[in-house]
């Protein structure tokens, strides 16, 4: 046990410098500008935008202007195709940006032109570079119009193809949490706050020497088996019954559809952040409540972080897989099953190449599955993508077959 703890810490330490949070489009850059304030140990954050002025205003260290030719620094005017072209114009700059990282947290407010068009391009590129890509997106409010809504759905579909997992927060779900007379700016500010809180929860989870550690491999296994769609929830509480408040906010609130998402999920990650007064009973309560709410046999991983100035506060962040795919079969079973390997029912569509980033969390006796090196000699050439599958990656890795036996 102690050995296990040690290596977890080590891998977290390794990770600290290797997470990149990138916001695409004005909405996401806005969220990131705000969410950074007050983080004790911030990750590398980058802003990517076609709108030069919005980019200049963003309070973010790294800035990448894309599409200077196609968008002329003026934004895309809501045209996703223009956003896509802009990203394609500056592939090299984007590649340079993601180089040397393990995890890309891609933040985007889908519906806008830049975010919707460029996010899938960035996600695909980062995956090609061997990164695990977690996209963290909002969908527009219904009142923002059907066109924006449609465009956002298209962007979401494209992102699901190109990212490892998409954590999606439909703004409409938040609508129910707002008082009916909320002013428009306040509504957007609330969305931004929820996004930043979630980001923070996730980052806290990964980056700190926590009381209860989760590491990259936990996130990875969730992401890889989630059917690339994650639900996201955030709740907080104050005072003596802070845990109960946070739980209630989450399980009864609209973000997880009153607990429906939890009930359907096969796997989830809970991140608890609290002050020095965070108690074992509170953690136990939280864990038990989720166990009760989830379906039998669901995998629940929990991490907890203690933040010095959080006395009397507790925040709960949940990532829940909306689908859970069973782990891959072994080589012997597959080959001996007699049936044709190729024509087996729909291979799990997403695992190719991402079968693992060989984090230190992977046991040594197992094949350290997957990494950029899976592409081997095809690393430096354009991938052969066939219906969303990168054929350059060895078939046995894509099928999750463990070799050598």
């Amino acid at each position, binding site marked *: 046990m102690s050995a296990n703890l040690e290596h977890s810490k080590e891998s977290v330490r390794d990770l600290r410098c290797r997470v990149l949070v990138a916001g695409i489009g004005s909405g996401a850059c806005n969220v990131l500008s705000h969410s950074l304030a007050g983080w004790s140990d911030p990750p590398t954050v980058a802003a990517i935008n076609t709108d030069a002025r919005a980019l200049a205003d963003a309070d973010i260290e790294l800035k990448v202007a894309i599409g200077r030719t196609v968008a002329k620094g003026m934004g895309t005017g809501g045209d996703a195709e223009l956003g896509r072209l802009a990203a394609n114009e500056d592939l090299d700059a984007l590649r340079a940006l993601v180089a040397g990282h393990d995890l890309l947290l891609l933040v985007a407010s889908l519906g806008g032109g830049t975010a919707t068009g460029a996010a899938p391009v960035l996600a695909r590129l980062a995956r090609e570079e061997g990164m695990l890509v977690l996209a963290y997106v909002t969908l527009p409010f219904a009142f923002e119009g059907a066109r924006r809504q449609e465009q956002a759905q298209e962007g979401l579909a494209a992102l699901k193809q190109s990212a490892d997992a998409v954590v999606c927060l439909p703004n409409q779900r938040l609508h129910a949490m707002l008082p009916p007379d909320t002013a428009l700016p306040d509504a957007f500010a609330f969305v931004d706050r929820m996004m930043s809180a979630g980001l923070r929860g996730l980052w806290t989870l990964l980056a700190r020497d926590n009381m209860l550690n989760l590491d990259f491999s936990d996130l990875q296994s969730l992401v890889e088996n989630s059917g690339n769609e994650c639900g996201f929830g955030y709740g907080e509480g104050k005072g003596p019954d802070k845990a109960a408040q946070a739980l209630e906010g989450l399980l009864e609130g609209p973000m997880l559809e009153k607990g429906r998402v939890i009930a359907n999920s096969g796997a989830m990650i809970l991140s608890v952040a609290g002050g020095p007064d965070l108690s074992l009973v509170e953690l136990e309560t939280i864990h038990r409540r989720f166990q009760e709410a989830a379906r039998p046999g669901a995998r629940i991983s929990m991490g907890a972080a203690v933040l010095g100035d959080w006395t009397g506060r507790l925040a709960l962040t949940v990532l829940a897989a909306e689908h859970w795919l069973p782990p891959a079969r072994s*080589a012997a079973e597959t*080959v001996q099953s007699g049936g*044709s*390997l*190729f*024509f087996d029912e729909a291979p799990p569509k997403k695992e190719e190449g991402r079968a693992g980033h060989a984090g230190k969390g992977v046991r040594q006796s197992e094949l350290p599955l997957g990494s950029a*090196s*899976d*592409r*081997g*000699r*095809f690393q*430096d*050439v354009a991938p*052969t993508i*066939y219906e969303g599958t990168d*054929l*350059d990656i*060895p*078939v*046995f*890795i894509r*099928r999750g*077959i463990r*070799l*050598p*036996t």
Partner: protein
Amino acid sequence: MNIEPIVALEIGTSRVRVFVGEAREDGALMITAVGDTASSGMRKGEIFHFDSVCACVETALRQAEEAADLKINEVYLALSGSQIEAMPSRAEIPVDGEIAQDDVDHVLKMAKEVTLPSDREILHSIFGQFGVDGLRGVTPVGLVGQTLSADMLIVHGVHSRMVNLVRVVKALKLEMAEPLFSGLCSAQAALSADQKLQGALLIDLGGGKTDYVVYAQAKIADAGVIAVGGDHVTNDVARAFRLSTTEAEALKLQHGDAMVSGAGRTRRLPLPTAAGETPRTAKLSDLQTIVHLRMEETFGLIRTRLQQQKLLPLLGGGVVLTGGGAHLKNVAQLAEKVFGLPCEIGVPRNASGLTANLAVPEYATGVGAVLHGYRGARARAEQSRGVWKKIGNWFGVN
């Protein structure tokens, strides 16, 4: 009839080959020289390092020039990769009474005019058949009817990638006779007239890509490239056993097998190790599994495509495998299993060799390109009658 020697250049991912063909007295084609050298600077049938490719092509050209004792000025270029694919095109025009040659020319021209995405270019427009008032496969000139239709198959690829291959030819100060899709060349060389009539699937297993060409109902019905080849098998093997590409290639060539055998489960193969390392071994069945999965996937992709096009039931002539990958042990057995059709290894037909043994599957593309050039030259020399016949001969049944 005097026909100049025909030269074909094949720039592949693993080999660069030059074939020189000359007419024999009896009118048959004889391959008089072959240049064959290892390729570098190519991946998946496309160029990624221009200068190394040029150097390899130059070496192969010199070999062939020396062997044939002639100066090569003009080449037929067999190319692949470039996301080459095919789509059917059909045009129909109203006619009034007896169909004239003008009507035929017109309908052919219309069938060739297709709209492609801006980055794509037509490589071949292959004539299929004419139809008069719904009656297909007729010779229209002189018939009477109300509508005349023409079916063609348009083979197209990504312009920039094909141009890069053509630029090699230009860089070496050669004339380009005609760019040809390598899969069609292989089909020209390896399929018998019977197979073309009955319907057949040709798969050319190259180092960097896999071409396929389908003959159905006596005409070319589909063609395309999958950018997966022998290099992928090697890469898979290298990845699984942590070997270098060279070591993995050697292991694949010596023990690679497209089928998993019972005996493979108990037999262990020594793996190359550096001095001082503990010796490693691998189970033969693991190697077989890796190769099997990759080949089965590739064949499966083609099968899916053919199923979608409803061509699978039309392949009475079975499957023919060409290219270096056809040497893989049990590969025909695997293809039979995947397609549910008889399968054979194809070698060039209709051409005899002077020196080299031509009857190997990897020569199909090059010999096919020479054959194509030769037939074209002969047709021109004969000034054959009627447009349809000329077009019909291009990759036609005969």
